[in-house]
């Protein structure tokens, strides 16, 4: 059995439908939103666990976020991960993807000798999909994005990933170490193993690292490390179904629908 060292990057996100924009302050109102693990990160963890089940190794979960994440991250341990690192510091706040990937990469580097890093394709809050390739760049290692299946050729020490591309897939080989971004809904995350659950939710399971622990350059984390700024926020049009009735002859209806469809193709 090989001794693969695996990291899974996970994030806690507010339930999307419960986030709004405060009309007066024009800021995100996520105070009252319930939180959950980013759904695609659950797919990433499942792929990592399956990989570990087949090829051996250990899994560390790495997350960057405020202290309350520690109430959610133990879910990963109860699913079968071995340890959790929470990168948490006031100075990490306000990070865009450049600062986020820098910080996560430092955490991964501090863990050391990592062979595979699994990330969800994107987060439901930011939906950038830039974190996985960004981490790969900071660590100067390979990447395969949008993967829905991953195998390992132990002899060649190469992973083989199946990438989702429009209308089909692509098979890509690459040596370790590698960052894998896992496509949304590419697997069904296993439920927690209740033999592990109470152990998983004990306080001492989580190691918290701050700016100093990571020896981070303060200009590269949080707001100073983020080139982008949010200059405006708006509530998107309601996601409730419109329930708009379209009348007419079949041909009239068809023309109207064709117009609607062409806007969306």
């Amino acid at each position, binding site marked *: 059995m090989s001794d693969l060292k695996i990291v899974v990057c996970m994030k806690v996100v507010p*339930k999307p*439908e*419960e986030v709004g924009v405060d009309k007066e302050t024009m800021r995100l109102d996520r105070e009252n939103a319930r939180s959950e693990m980013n759904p695609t990160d659950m797919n990433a963890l499942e792929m990592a666990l399956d990989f570990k089940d087949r090829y051996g190794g250990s899994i560390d979960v790495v997350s960057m976020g405020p202290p309350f994440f520690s109430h959610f991250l133990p879910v990963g341990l109860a699913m079968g991960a071995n340890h959790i690192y929470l990168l948490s510091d006031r100075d990490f706040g306000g990070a865009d993807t450049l600062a986020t990937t820098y910080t996560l990469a430092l955490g991964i580097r501090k863990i050391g000798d990592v062979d595979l890093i699994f990330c969800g394709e994107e987060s439901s809050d930011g939906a950038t999909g830039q974190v996985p390739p960004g981490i790969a760049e900071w660590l100067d290692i390979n990447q395969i994005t949008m993967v829905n299946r991953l195998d390992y050729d132990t002899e060649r020490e190469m992973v083989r990933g199946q990438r989702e591309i429009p209308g089909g897939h692509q098979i890509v080989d690459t040596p370790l170490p590698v960052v894998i971004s896992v496509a949304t809904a590419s697997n*069904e*995350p*296993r439920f*927690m193993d*209740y033999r592990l*659950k109470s152990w998983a939710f004990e306080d001492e399971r989580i190691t918290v690292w701050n700016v100093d622990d990571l020896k981070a350059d303060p200009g590269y984390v949080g707001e100073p490390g983020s080139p982008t700024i949010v200059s405006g926020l708006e509530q998107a049009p309601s996601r409730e179904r419109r329930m708009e009735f379209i009348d007419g002859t079949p041909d009239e209806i068809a023309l109207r629908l064709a117009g609607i469809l062409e806007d969306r193709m």
Partner: protein
Amino acid sequence: MSDNVIDEAEVPANEIELLEPASEPEAVVLDDELWEQLIELTGGAAAPCFQCGVCTAICPWGTVRQEPISVRKLMRRAQLGLFNENEGLWLCTACAQCEPYCPRGVPIVEVFRGLRYLAWERRQALEGLPSVLWSVYWNNNPWFQPPSQRTAWVENGQLPDFDPTQHEILLYVGCTSSYDRRAQNVARSVVKLLNAAGVKYGVLGESEPCCGEAVLSMGHGPYFEEVAAKATAVFQERGVKKIVTISPHCFDVFRNHYGGLSETVEVYHYTQLLAELVESGQLEFGISPGLKATFQDPCFLGRGNNEYEAPRKVLAAIPSIDLVEMEHTGIDSLCCGGGGGRMWMETEAGERFSDLRVQEAIDVGAQVVVTACPSCIACLEDSVKASGHKELLVLDVAELAILSQESVPAEMADD
């Protein structure tokens, strides 16, 4: 019990064959650890089984499949500490039709749940079921619906928020009645009836906890215990003394699987409350739809909790309802197929008990099949549509009661 059942209760030929050790070669390998675990998980419940096979013969799967589920064999395996992946394990609808006939009184459904938990531990649960548990975990409902939409079904504003100083009763709506468009109509009907009878009740709204029935029936005992503990804490915190549920599934878990809850809290199904209201004259029905009706006993109301009378009392109080009984009734009532977590698993066409049930209803000339369970409604309506007998109505007791007051046609959906 019909003679028919006794005849079938003889061990079928293929069963006898399976009793021979030669056809169970793996029986020679016994795993002590697993054996102990199985005893623990099933509470030793399978121990008294002496392998008569009545359970297998009675199981309704035998009526829709060439090969029935070998309940007997699963019991034997539980006794011996043998476990392997078994499709039959997930087919069980927890209807418990076998249990009253078991000469040794084995709680067979409980043994199934124990075996299912073993499958969870071994990561052999059916595909799709982990997602249901995750939905309960993140969304507080097994239907993948946003928790913030739990009260979206309520018509015209709000229902009274439960307050123990004002409300005698907590109306526990349940996840299915909160989210399933068809079942919402049942919830609205119950609400109208309670209002009409002047009952003082409140609801928990968005903070209503999932009862965990889906979790229990899929066999995840430890997670169910966690859900139950949380829900119990909510009920205690809110000072609840009397719960009335819409679904018999919630009713059953609160009553029989919630540890100490039933010692401090009275639990009723809404048909029991309606029956009381009818008896005390608080609830009366006016206009008559004049229908020939038959009643489908929900398993968790009838066999599960021995409540056959309350819904029939309510139906009897509706003028000009001619209640007829189907071939299988009372303790022999046929399951709709939706229990035991089967609502989250696909049942192939031709294997749905509800098809048989609809035929039974047609055979007795019923114009409406009345039931008192959201799962029964979903399954029966599907089967009515598939049968082509679209004239046959499927209604909940509460809906029929409302119909007798308002003559509002019910909404039906088939896909």
